[in-house]
C-alpha cells in the first residue's frame, strides 16, 4: 500500500456519551483509514469498540448521544447526511459484519434472499445478477454447495457457515469499507480459523478497506496492517501491526498481550514454595471429613487452580488456608514458617499476606459503606495509612482494577456486579498480599465480565508478583489464568500438575470426565453461582 493512498474515512475528535449518566463511551477519537487499508481495533469489553465501529457507519445506538466530532467518508459528513440517503450510501459503500450471525439473520427468510436484499432494495443490481454474485461469493468463501446453499434457512447451516454468509452479505455490493465486529468471537477455534481465512481472502480480492474489531490481539495481528488499541474510550496506541507485536509502547497494550498469548508464559519455578500444605484433613463441627489428606504447593508469582465440582471440597480448602476453618490434621507453611491454623492465632502480618476473595462480591462488600471506606480499612489496618495518603492510595487501587476514581464516595450497594467484584479485588490488593485466594470469583459473572476479571488478575500478578490460588469449576478460566492445577474430587486431590500437562493428558478418570463435560472449555456463558 502506497504512502500516498488517499484517505477513505476519517473520524475527528468524536465524543459519544451515554445519555443516562453522561459517561463518555468514546472520548475524542481520531482515526483515519486509507482505501484498501485493514485496521485492527483492539480493546477489552466495554472499551467502546462496537460504538466506534457503528459510528464509522454513521450510526449511533439508542441511549447514546454524539457530543461533537465528525465521521467523513471521502469528505462527506455521515452525521449530516439525511437518513434515507445514508441508508443508500451504506448499502452501496459500507459493509458490516456483526458478532453474532445467528442474531443478525431473520430465521423466517431464506439465506439468499437475505444476502441480496439490500442490493435489490436500493436497485444496485437486478435479481439475476444479485443471485449470481451471491452464489459466486459463497463459493469463494469456501462454503459447500454454493448453488443450493442460498435456498436454506439460517437454522439449516452451522454457525461458522452463517458467519461466512454474513461476510457475503456485507461484501456483495463491493463496499469501500467493511466493519467487522468480532466476527469470530462466538466460534470455536477451528471454525474461527476458516472464517478468518475467508475474511483475508475476501479483503485481498476486493481491495476494500476494513476495520476489524476484536478483543483478541494475537488474532488481529494476522489480518491487520495497522492496529489501534482502544482503552476506556480513547485510542491509546495506534501503530503498524509489526510494531504492536514487537514493541508495544502503552502499558495497556502490553497487558493485553499477556492475556492474548492464551497460554501463559512459563516462568522459572522458584525453589522454595511460598505456601505449602501437607496432609490437610478437615471437616465442619463434629461432622465427617470433607478434606482427606490434601497437599499442595504454591510458588511466588504463580497461579494454582483448584478445580472440582461443587461439593468436591475446593472451597473448604480455601477456607482452611484463610484460617476460617482449622484443619484436623496436617500442617501449613508460609515461606517455610508454620502458619497457625486459626485466624485469631495469626499475626496481623500473616493476615495481610494471605487475602481471600469471596465468590459473591455482593455479599463481601458492606452495602452501607462507600468505596473509600471499604478501601481505607485494609490500608489503615495493614499499612497504617490514613487521611490524604489513604485517599491517594485508594485512587491508585481503583486505577489498578480499572475503576474510575470518581466512584470513591459512592456506596457499594450502588455499584454494578462487575464493579463490585473489581472493588473486592482492589480491597484485597490494598493489603499487598503474597497469596490471593480467589473462591469462584468469576462464577457469578457473565462471560464478558468474567474475562475482564481474569485479564485483570493476570495483569495484577504480572505487576505485583502475587501468588494466586484460583478455586473454580470452570476449566476455560483455568486455561486463561493458571500455571498449575489440582483437581479435587470428594475431598481428595485426584490429580496435580502443570495446566498444560493435565489438560492435554489427564491421568485420572475424574479429570477426563470433567474435561469432557466442559466441552473443551469454550463456554460462552456461565451459570450464576452454584
Amino acid at each position: 500500500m502506497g504512502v500516498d493512498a488517499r484517505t477513505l474515512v476519517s473520524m475527528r475528535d468524536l465524543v459519544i456519551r451515554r445519555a443516562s449518566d453522561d459517561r463518555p463511551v468514546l472520548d475524542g477519537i481520531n482515526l483515519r483509514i486509507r482505501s484498501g487499508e485493514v485496521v485492527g481495533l483492539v480493546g477489552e469489553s466495554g472499551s467502546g469498540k462496537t460504538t466506534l465501529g457503528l459510528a464509522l457507519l454513521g450510526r449511533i445506538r439508542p441511549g447514546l448521544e454524539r457530543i461533537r466530532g465528525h465521521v467523513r467518508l471521502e469528505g462527506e459528513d455521515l452525521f449530516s447526511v439525511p437518513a434515507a440517503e445514508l441508508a443508500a450510501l451504506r448499502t452501496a459503500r459500507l459493509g458490516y459484519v456483526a458478532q453474532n450471525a445467528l442474531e443478525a439473520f431473520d430465521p423466517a427468510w431464506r439465506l439468499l434472499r437475505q444476502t441480496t436484499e439490500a442490493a435489490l432494495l436500493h436497485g444496485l443490481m437486478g435479481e439475476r445478477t444479485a443471485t449470481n454474485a451471491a452464489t459466486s461469493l459463497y463459493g469463494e468463501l469456501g462454503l459447500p454447495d454454493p448453488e443450493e446453499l442460498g435456498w436454506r434457512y439460517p437454522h439449516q447451516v452451522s454457525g461458522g457457515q452463517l458467519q461466512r454468509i454474513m461476510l457475503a452479505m456485507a461484501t456483495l455490493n463491493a463496499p469501500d469499507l467493511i466493519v467487522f465486529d468480532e466476527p469470530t468471537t462466538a466460534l470455536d477455534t477451528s471454525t474461527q480459523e476458516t472464517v478468518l481465512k475467508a475474511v483475508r481472502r475476501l479483503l485481498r480480492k476486493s481491495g476494500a478497506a476494513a476495520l476489524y474489531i476484536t478483543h483478541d490481539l494475537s488474532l488481529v495481528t494476522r489480518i491487520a496492517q495497522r492496529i489501534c488499541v482502544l482503552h476506556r474510550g480513547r485510542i491509546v496506541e495506534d501503530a503498524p501491526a509489526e510494531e504492536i507485536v514487537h514493541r508495544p509502547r502503552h502499558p495497556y497494550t502490553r497487558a493485553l498481550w499477556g492475556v492474548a498469548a492464551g497460554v501463559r508464559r512459563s516462568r522459572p519455578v522458584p525453589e522454595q514454595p511460598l505456601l505449602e500444605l501437607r496432609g490437610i484433613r478437615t471437616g465442619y463441627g463434629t461432622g465427617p471429613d470433607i478434606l482427606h489428606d490434601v497437599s499442595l504447593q504454591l510458588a511466588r508469582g504463580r497461579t494454582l487452580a483448584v478445580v472440582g465440582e461443587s461439593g468436591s471440597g475446593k472451597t473448604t480448602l480455601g477456607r482452611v488456608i484463610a484460617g476460617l476453618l482449622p484443619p484436623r490434621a496436617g500442617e501449613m507453611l508460609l515461606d517455610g514458617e508454620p502458619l497457625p491454623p486459626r485466624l485469631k492465632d495469626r499475626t496481623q502480618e500473616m493476615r495481610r499476606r494471605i487475602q481471600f476473595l469471596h465468590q459473591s462480591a455482593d455479599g463481601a462488600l458492606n452495602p452501607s459503606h462507600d468505596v473509600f471506606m471499604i478501601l481505607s480499612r485494609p490500608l489503615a489496618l495493614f499499612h497504617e495509612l490514613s487521611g490524604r495518603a489513604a485517599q491517594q492510595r485508594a485512587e491508585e487501587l481503583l486505577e489498578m482494577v480499572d475503576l474510575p476514581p470518581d466512584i470513591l464516595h459512592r456506596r457499594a450497594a450502588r455499584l454494578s456486579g462487575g464493579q463490585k467484584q473489581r472493588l473486592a479485588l482492589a480491597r484485597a490488593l490494598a493489603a499487598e498480599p503474597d497469596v490471593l485466594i480467589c473462591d469462584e470469583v468469576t462464577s457469578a459473572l457473565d462471560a464478558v465480565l468474567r474475562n475482564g476479571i481474569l485479564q485483570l488478575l493476570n495483569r495484577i500478578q504480572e505487576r505485583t508478583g502475587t501468588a494466586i490460588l484460583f478455586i473454580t469449576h470452570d476449566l476455560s478460566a483455568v486455561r486463561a489464568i493458571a500455571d498449575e492445577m489440582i483437581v479435587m474430587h470428594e475431598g481428595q486431590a485426584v490429580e496435580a500438575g502443570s495446566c498444560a500437562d493435565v489438560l492435554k493428558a489427564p491421568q485420572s478418570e475424574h479429570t477426563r470426565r470433567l474435561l469432557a463435560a466442559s466441552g473443551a472449555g469454550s463456554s460462552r456463558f456461565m451459570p450464576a453461582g452454584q
Partner: protein
Amino acid sequence: MTHRARIRPTSPGNISPVQVAAATIMWFYVLAALLAPLIAPYGEAEIVGEAFAPWSTQHWLGTDQLGRDFLSRLLYGLRNSLVLAVTTTLLSFLVGGLAGLLAATGGRIMDTVLSRFVDVIMALPALIFALMLLTVFGTGAMQLVLVIGLLDATRVFRIARTLAMREAAMDYVEAARLRGESLRRIMIAEILPNVKAPLLAEAGMRFSFVFLTVATLSFLGLGLQPPAADLGSMVRENATLITYGDFTPLIPAGLIALLAMAVNFLIDGRLEEEEGTIHGG
C-alpha cells in the same frame, strides 16, 4: 409494618407534606417542653382556685381535681413526659441494642449467656417486675427511667440480635474478621449501619409505649410522684370529668397520640430515605 406502605414521599429526595407536618409538630412539642416554665401562666403545683373549674379567661382549660391550672399542668406534663420518654427509649436502645449486637457477633458463649439472661427477665410479668423493682429502689424520675428502660431493653435485645445474626453471617463480616477488625468495630461500623433502619422503626413504637407504661405506673402510685405532672397521669386524674360531658381530660390523651404519630411518621420518612439510598431509589 403495614402502616409504612401507606405513607410514601411524593418522590425520592423530595420531602412529603406528611413529613413536613410531622416535623412541625415535633418542633412544637420540643419548644413547648423547653419553654414550659416561661409560657405557663401558673406554677406546676400551684393551687389557683376551685377544683374542676370550667374553662375561663383566667384558666383557659379550667382547673384539675386539686384546683391547679390545667394549661400550666399540661405544659409541664408535656415537658416531663417528653424527657422521660426520650431518655428511657435511648437507654433501652443503648443497652438492648448493644447487647443484641454483642450476642450476635461475640461467639456462642456470649450469645448463650446474654440470651438466657434476657429469657429469665422476660419470663417475669413486666409490670409486676417493674412494681417490685420500684418498691425496692424507691420511686422517682431516675428510677423510673432505669426500670422502664432496662425492661424495654430486653425486647430491643431480641430484635437487635435477630437482625444482627442475619448480617453476621454475611461475607462482609467474614472479610472484616479476615483483615483483623476488632469485635467492637465489627459491631459498630460493619453491622450496625445495616440493622439501623428496622431498629429505628422499633424505637418509634417503643417511644410511644413509654407514655402508657409511665401512666400505668403512676396510676399505681409508682410513676412520677406528685405534684410533678405527666400527660398519662393527667388523663387518669381528671377522667371523671368525661362523665360530665367535659372533654378536657382528652387533651393530654390527644397530645400523646399526636406525638406518637409525629414520631412514627418522621421515622418512616428516614427509612424511606435510607432505602432510597441503599437500593438506588
